[in-house]
């Protein structure tokens, strides 16, 4: 290919390449030729070469070596070279390139060029890729051009000013005085740009907004002129006179009229006129009407006007054109918060749109339906939403599921309905729900105590039908483990009874354990459930023992640890098994640390089970107690628990931004020794807890010595510190247990 071949020739050759590789080769050869040509200082084909480079750049090949050539071409005196140079600058240069600063001077010169076309090139490039420094340098030039007589240059200069204001908001003050006067222009292009500039200035600065409120009458006048004018051929689009300008002015009126009664009054008549007179059979008219409606809803308009606006939106909703329907739903979304009842009237149509084949319309309808759910229509809406969930496109599923959950939680008419709804969602779209659904559902189930039988039967049925939905599997396993005895009784009022044997139930759990579809978390749930059943059933305890011991050598470390611990529970701690595996207490939903539910169902942070502490090591008593007394004076410590002669004090050793170190001190003022003293602690999920080994587990009588235990809390998300502590000890052969909640912590010794 000859190096000076024209752009069209090169395009023809590239198009004739039959494979991607061939095209790449051709382009590389061409780029090499162009590069060589750029290095030669003077040749007549510079514009062609840059044009070819820009084409290659559009196809996606690297073209950065053309940047300096752009700079050179911009500085050339010839118009054709400047033109392609500026185009190249817009496509290849950006703020981050150093070369962009080099063209600042050229732009400055070109802004004062005698030819308006050259001026317009410079303005266009500045508006497209002007960096903050360039804008600062050239802002005075633009101000001068705002007063130009030529409307062609003026409108470009105004838009350039908008770009400058976006980059450097402070410079808005420079253009504010001129902006007002621009509204008296006759040329629609200039008027349009002026309205854009005023909109931008008002959005950036509330003071400027107040200043521009006095232009409302002028804007109303311009709008009236546009509506009333007869057919004007140059601005006419489908029968509407310059709809683009009308839409812009309406948007500016919206911003000016917001939260201001005087301005809103001034535009009431105009808006009513536009709303009633505009012909909406074509897109142009609909655009103007739509903008009018949004403006009416946003300003302080009178109620009659608002009703008119909502009616227009309702009419749009029933339009055959899908674009119009989409637009009306978008605008209904904007007003559903403020005018809820008005939008409710159209609920039927919106719910029908859920069944539309267009994915965009479905998305809008979903958002709007979720916003329209209320206590009165929850049952019908939920039916529709559940049907939608089973047929909706996959990208909307997660959003639908979470929306359904939120709605169900807020407006559930009964607990049974709530549980049914969540189960339905899990069965249909269990893979798309969020992780916290499982604990939330479990919490809900435990609170609905009279429904335990119903719930567990339903879950069992769902489990044997399908074990692929992990959230469903996890909840089902947990419930079967917890309420297995109710399941085996098999009788329930609201659901048809099932006769189950213990083997059936254990089979179901084993299937989950062995299936390759189960996630590790589900298998852990199943194993724990199996273990819990050992206290709920009577005949097949051996089967459970064998299952548990098999998993003692499982590859999954979590499962292995659980199995080993449960084995230990069978062997060494069989006397504790019933107590450990008893029915969970109802998780209190409203308690602040309700994520402390980690205490339930899991083996807690406890030094006794996993690392059996050798019984009662005693410390040298006297010095410790003296030191303890001395420290007590200096460091504030709070007594968090005092009962039956046992007291627990808490002091804060040190506190950093994200970590707190605490020391618990336990003291015994009874006549008897207290043995086997242990502390267990639980904290909210976002905080990490580390308990160091206690100093001992024997509290001698008379309070001579104390047991201390250091606890380190790490709180990276800086949530409120709360803690629940369980003490257990043995006093004269009786095992005592108590729990205390700690909400306020003492300040550290030094801050």
């Amino acid at each position: 290919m000859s190096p000076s071949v024209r752009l069209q020739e090169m395009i023809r050759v590239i198009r004739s390449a039959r494979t991607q590789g061939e095209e790449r080769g051709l382009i590389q050869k061409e780029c090499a030729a162009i590069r060589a040509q750029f290095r030669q200082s003077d040749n007549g084909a510079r514009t062609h070469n840059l044009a070819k480079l820009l084409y290659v750049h559009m196809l996606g090949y690297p073209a950065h070596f053309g940047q300096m050539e752009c700079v050179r071409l911009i500085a050339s005196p010839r118009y054709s070279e400047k033109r392609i140079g500026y185009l190249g600058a817009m496509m290849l240069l950006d703020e981050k390139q150093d070369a962009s600063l080099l063209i600042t001077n050229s732009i400055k010169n070109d802004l004062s060029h005698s030819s308006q076309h050259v001026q317009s090139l410079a303005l266009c490039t500045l508006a497209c890729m002007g960096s903050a420094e360039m804008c600062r340098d050239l802002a005075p030039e633009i101000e001068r051009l705002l007063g130009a007589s030529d409307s062609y240059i003026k409108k470009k200069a105004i838009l350039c000013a908008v770009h400058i204001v976006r980059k450097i908001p402070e410079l808005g003050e420079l253009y504010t005085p001129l902006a007002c006067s621009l509204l008296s222009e006759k040329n629609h292009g200039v008027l349009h740009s002026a309205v854009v500039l005023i909109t931008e200035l008002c959005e950036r600065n509330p003071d400027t907004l107040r200043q521009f409120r006095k232009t409302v009458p002028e804007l109303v006048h311009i709008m009236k002129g546009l509506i009333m004018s007869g057919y004007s051929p140059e601005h006419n689009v489908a029968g509407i006179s310059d709809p683009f300008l009308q839409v812009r002015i309406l948007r500016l009126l919206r911003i000016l009229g917001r939260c201001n009664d005087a301005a809103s009054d001034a535009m009431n008549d105009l808006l009513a006129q536009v709303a009633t007179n505009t012909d909406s059979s074509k897109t142009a008219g609909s655009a103007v009407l739509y903008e009018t409606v949004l403006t009416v809803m946003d300003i302080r308009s009178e109620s009659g006007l608002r009703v008119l606006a909502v009616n227009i939106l309702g009419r749009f909703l029933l339009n055959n054109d899908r674009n119009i329907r989409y637009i009306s739903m978008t605008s209904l979304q904007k007003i559903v918060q403020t005018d809820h009842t008005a939008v409710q009237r159209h609920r039927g149509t919106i719910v029908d749109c859920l069944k539309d084949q267009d994915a965009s319309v479905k998305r809008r309808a979903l958002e709007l339906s979720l916003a329209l759910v209320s206590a009165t229509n929850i049952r019908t809406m939920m039916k529709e939403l559940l049907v939608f969930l089973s047929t909706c496109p996959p990208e909307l599923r997660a959003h639908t599921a979470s929306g359904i959950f939120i709605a169900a939680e807020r407006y559930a008419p009964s607990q049974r309905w709530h549980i049914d709804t969540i189960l339905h969602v899990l069965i249909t779209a269990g893979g798309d729900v969020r992780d916290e659904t499982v604990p939330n559902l479990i919490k809900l189930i435990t609170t609905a105590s009279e429904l335990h039988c119903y719930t567990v039967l339903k879950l069992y049925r769902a489990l044997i039908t399908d074990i692929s939905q992990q959230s469903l599997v996890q909840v089902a396993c947990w419930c079967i483990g917890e309420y297995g005895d109710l399941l085996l009784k098999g009788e329930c009022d609201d659901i048809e009874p099932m006769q189950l044997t213990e083997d059936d139930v254990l089979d179901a759990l084993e299937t989950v354990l062995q299936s390759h579809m189960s996630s590790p978390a589900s298998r852990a749930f199943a194993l724990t459930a199996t273990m819990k059943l050992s206290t709920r059933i009577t005949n097949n305890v051996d089967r459970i023992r064998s299952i548990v011991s098999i998993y003692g050598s499982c590859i999954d470390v979590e499962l292995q640890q659980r199995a080993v611990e449960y084995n230990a529970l069978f062997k060494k701690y069989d006397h504790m098994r019933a107590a450990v595996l008893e029915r969970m207490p109802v998780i209190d939903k409203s308690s602040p640390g309700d994520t402390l539910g980690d205490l339930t169902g899991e083996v807690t942070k406890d030094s006794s089970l996993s690392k059996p502490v050798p019984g009662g090591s005693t410390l040298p008593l006297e010095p410790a107690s003296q030191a303890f007394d001395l420290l007590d004076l200096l460091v504030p410590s709070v007594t968090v628990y005092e009962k039956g002669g046992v007291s627990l004090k808490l002091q804060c050793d040190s506190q950093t931004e994200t970590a707190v170190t605490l020391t618990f001190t336990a003291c015994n003022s009874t006549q008897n020794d207290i043995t086997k003293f242990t502390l267990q602690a639980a904290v909210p999920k976002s905080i990490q807890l580390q308990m160091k080994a206690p100093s001992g587990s024997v509290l001698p009588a008379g309070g001579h010595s104390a047991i201390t235990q250091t606890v380190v809390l790490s709180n990276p998300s800086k949530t409120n510190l709360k803690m629940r502590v369980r003490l257990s000890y043995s006093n004269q052969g009786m095992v005592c247990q108590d729990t205390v909640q700690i909400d306020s912590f003492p300040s550290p010794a030094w801050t």
Partner: protein
Amino acid sequence: MIKAILIFNNHGKPRLSKFYEHYNEDIEQQIIRETFHLVSKRDENVCNFLEGGLLIGGSDNKLIYRHYATLYFVFCVDSAESELGILDLIQVFVETLDKCFENVCELDLIFHVDKVHHILAEMVMGGMVLETNMNEIITQVDAQVKMERSEAGIAGAPARAVSAVKNMNLPEMPKNINIGDISIKVNLLLQRL
């Protein structure tokens, strides 16, 4: 604000790509591919608005597109623009191209990319709508073309003559024709221009 204007054909080959916000080159190509992927899945009788492009901005941005014959015209805009207004703007753009190129087709856009850029620069500047009056735009574009031609001067005449001849649909000419003096033939061509 208009974030980007893309024109690509039914197979995803870009015919024009103008970004009003800066992205890296490979991100730009990715955006074009992703947009094509989203737009080509759409049925014929669904609405012209799309949400869900991840690369170009995110939740605030919509893709407004129109399908003309073999080309998709896609405008990526944020919420400050009126969606129906942009639909009309696309129509005005295509009508302007039609006027400038005389029954525009995809080949025109392929071989005259720079001219399409210059026309677009008269309509949208810095991501904002500049001019929507078709006659006004065409007047300016013609004035610019005239300025370029006058600068090229007499030196450009043979080049233009060659390209004019190439673009003409000449019927098959018989091989042996006595045309007499060649210089007369050249003058005729120049006059026709």
